[in-house]
């Protein structure tokens, strides 16, 4: 069995009197695309927040790349190699595509917060060369100097991926990358993720079942804050609990 890159052990979190997450054990192996699915309100977003470090658990732990990162803040987890994209497009709309990505490259380089007060960024050729590479990777080479606010929705999502890539992650945490995209854009996004999956481990949270079953090596199902099943797509598709709890007639 491959080494687990991300391992979540006995994670629990309560909000008021509600168990948002209950004793969740979950792992992502290096190199795989692992999809997390579940009905609305199952706790997927809460779970993602605990993985990324936006929220801290009541109990349990999160391990990443061999280290316990439970107590680490979001930016330290990013520095450790965990990058995320957002459910809602979250790029700097007033900046050009390349400035957005350059910011991400700089974030990785300055992880130890080296402060540079004097040299104009525009003269840092290497920074922009690298940023351009990521834009090429996600197919935005024609849009390098376009202000992000003027990009189409699907292009903005691709830009966000480029920013995530620029942090040179060991693992990409993709939170509903297909949300709000049309059929054509979705198809492009699936291709893009397939392409990225050759280089990087991916934890994918997604509603689009066609995309999930096409992309995922393994699928985990979260229902009411509990993980009810993990396995290969065919096994999950056949699992009776999953059908009853969630999938219904979709499959």
């Amino acid at each position, binding site marked *: 069995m491959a080494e687990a890159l991300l391992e979540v052990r006995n994670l629990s979190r309560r909000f008021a009197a509600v168990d948002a997450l209950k004793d969740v054990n979950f792992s992502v192996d290096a190199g795989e695309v692992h999809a997390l699915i579940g009905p609305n309100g199952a706790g997927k977003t809460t779970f993602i927040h605990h993985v990324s470090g936006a929220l801290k658990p009541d109990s349990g732990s999160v391990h990443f790349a061999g280290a316990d990162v439970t107590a680490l803040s979001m930016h330290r987890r990013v520095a450790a190699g965990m990058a995320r994209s957002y459910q809602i497009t979250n790029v*700097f709309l007033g*900046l050009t595509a390349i400035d957005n990505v350059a910011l991400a490259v700089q974030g990785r380089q300055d992880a130890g917060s080296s402060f540079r007060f004097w040299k104009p960024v*525009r003269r840092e050729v290497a920074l922009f060369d690298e940023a351009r590479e990521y834009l090429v990777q996600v197919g935005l080479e024609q849009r390098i100097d376009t202000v992000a606010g003027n990009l189409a929705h699907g292009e903005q999502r691709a830009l966000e991926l480029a920013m995530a890539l620029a942090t040179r992650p060991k693992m990409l945490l993709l939170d509903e990358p297909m949300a709000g995209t049309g059929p054509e854009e979705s198809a492009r996004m699936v291709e893009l993720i397939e392409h990225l999956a050759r280089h990087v481990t991916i934890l994918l949270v997604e509603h689009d079942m066609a995309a999930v079953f096409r992309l995922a090596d393994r699928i985990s199902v979260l229902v009411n804050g509990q993980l009810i099943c993990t396995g290969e797509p065919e096994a999950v598709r056949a699992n009776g609990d999953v059908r009853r709890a969630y999938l219904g007639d979709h499959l």
Partner: protein
Amino acid sequence: MAFYRPAPYQKPVAIALLLVLAALPFGLAAVDQAFYIGFATRVLIFALAATSLNLVLGFGGMFSLGHAAFFGVGAYTAAICQQAGINEALIAFPLAMIAAGAFALVVGAISLRTRGVYFIMITLAFTQMAYYLAVSARSWGGDDGLPLVGRMTLAGVSLADDTHLYFAAFFGLTVTMLFFGRLADARFGRVIQAIRENETRMEALGYPVFTYRLVCFALGGALAGLAGALLANLTGLASPNLLLWTQSGTLLVMLIIGGVGYLYGGAVGALILLCLEEVLVGFTPHWHIVLGLILLGVVLFAPKGVAALFGKRHG
């Protein structure tokens, strides 16, 4: 938002301005208006103070109502230095910057845990604390403030001559503006501007947001401290009134009039507000009413400040 970027005409304009400002005291003396050199110095000092607030508020996005505290700490540090026998500005001014910057570091470390309105209020609370401490510290003059027996020397040259002090302030402002302009266009400036727009995103890109904010806040505090030390030399007094929240309000008003987030917003605002004061005082003892009405007019009809009329907003 787009990142700050120096306009193509910025360099020639800046050089022309520098020449005009360098010639100003001699020009004033030539037409027998040397009296105004003091006033011009005051404008430069407040331009520096308002610019330091611009770094924190306009570029860093931290709405602080406590900036006067750092201004005041700078003034008191200068006066205390003199009391302790240090009369050389080359020592006293850096000390004022360090003291104000260190105080800003402490205030920031606590305040930056909060957001929005709570941040405004907690910075304001710290100003009040500094004010009351100054008022009750009898060895530092209490209510009356701590007077300077005379102006300091700068590299051995006495600042007692108004023109000398003018050039000290001129030099301080020039270096600050140069530093500010470079900083805004460098990596650090981009980061704080981006944090102002979306701090969660920046955190998700791996930036230690809190640290960047804190550094920016402390830098602003240190620059305000320099302005305070200069002002103490100009007026001959470190007054507790410098620490009042209304003083923060005045700096804020200058910056808003000039244009928040424009490189020259603070300087332009200081010039306008102080000139306005100077002119209005000549017309009526109740000039505050007129000033208030003008400010209301700015809010309602020129909400982005005067600098917005000339250039694109970088923030």
